[in-house]
């Protein structure tokens, strides 16, 4: 009789545990990197929504905000282009967060600044698990959004001093 050995026993156990393919099972779960990419797309959609809403409510802010909005649209396009649409999962096309806009123009600018700052933090947290090229895209977008924070803070400061 064949004695169970340390080398054959694990093989037997592994083979006996094998099952056929699960017919009719759902699509495989999304890879972590795809999930974070889809979240990044949604985050840009949310920022674009806040910019559009703010510009609609405070038309005087349009000239200052339009270039930043254009850059968010560029971020969204570049991120969306990186998504290989997984089966059964569409690339997000609409904002998921639609906060009320602050009742003052200065408050609305501060709201945008805070949203940009939060977006920077989220993107930087995504670096470790990303591929090198995707990490560079996240870092570049995070840097762009960090400059938006600076630009918005400067605008708020100028509106306070009336300059």
């Amino acid at each position: 009789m064949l004695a169970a050995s340390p080398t054959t026993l694990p093989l037997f156990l592994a083979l006996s545990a094998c099952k056929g393919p699960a017919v009719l099972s759902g699509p495989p779960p999304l890879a972590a990197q795809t999930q974070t990419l889809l979240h990044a797309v949604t985050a840009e959609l949310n920022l674009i929504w806040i910019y559009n809403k703010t510009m609609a409510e405070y038309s005087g802010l349009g000239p200052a905000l339009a270039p930043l909005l254009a850059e968010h649209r560029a971020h969204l396009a570049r991120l969306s282009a990186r998504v290989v649409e997984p089966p059964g999962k569409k690339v997000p096309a609409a904002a998921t967060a639609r906060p009320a806009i602050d009742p003052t123009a200065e408050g609305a600018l501060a709201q945008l600044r805070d949203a940009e700052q939060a977006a920077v933090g989220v993107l930087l947290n995504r670096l470790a698990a990303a591929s090198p090229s995707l990490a560079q895209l996240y870092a570049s977008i995070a840097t762009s959004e960090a400059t938006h924070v600076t630009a918005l803070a400067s605008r708020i400061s100028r509106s306070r001093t009336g300059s």
Partner: protein
Amino acid sequence: MKSVKATEIAALQAALAAEHAAVYGYGVVGAMLSGADGSLAHADWLAHQEARDNLEQMLLHLGATPVAASPAYELPFPVSGAASAVRLAAFLEDGVTEAYLGLVAVTDRTLRSFGALAMQPPANRALAWRGSTVAFPGMPTAPASA
């Protein structure tokens, strides 16, 4: 001592070389500016010296010999007055931002995070000089063909 790959050392050396160039370049920028712009150029020059020293320490800590500054650098365009000096300052900051983005592609998570965070000061200084933001700091202007 921590084991770091040659690619990671090379990325740190590239960032250091960019900081060396910025320190040199701001010498030219500062000579052409006065008043508030002159003070800003001086502050930025000091910031690049500090960043350079920091990178040199990091490389020494990793057992590498930090790359030395070149004795002179070729300017990307003639600098003959305040307007071209301001353009040069923005150009220098763009170069440093791009060099730090190179660090983000390495596998070491600490260096990757360091590179991403180190991009922000030069990008903000470029904003101060240029007066406008850019969509993809540090990246080539044309879309990359990933």
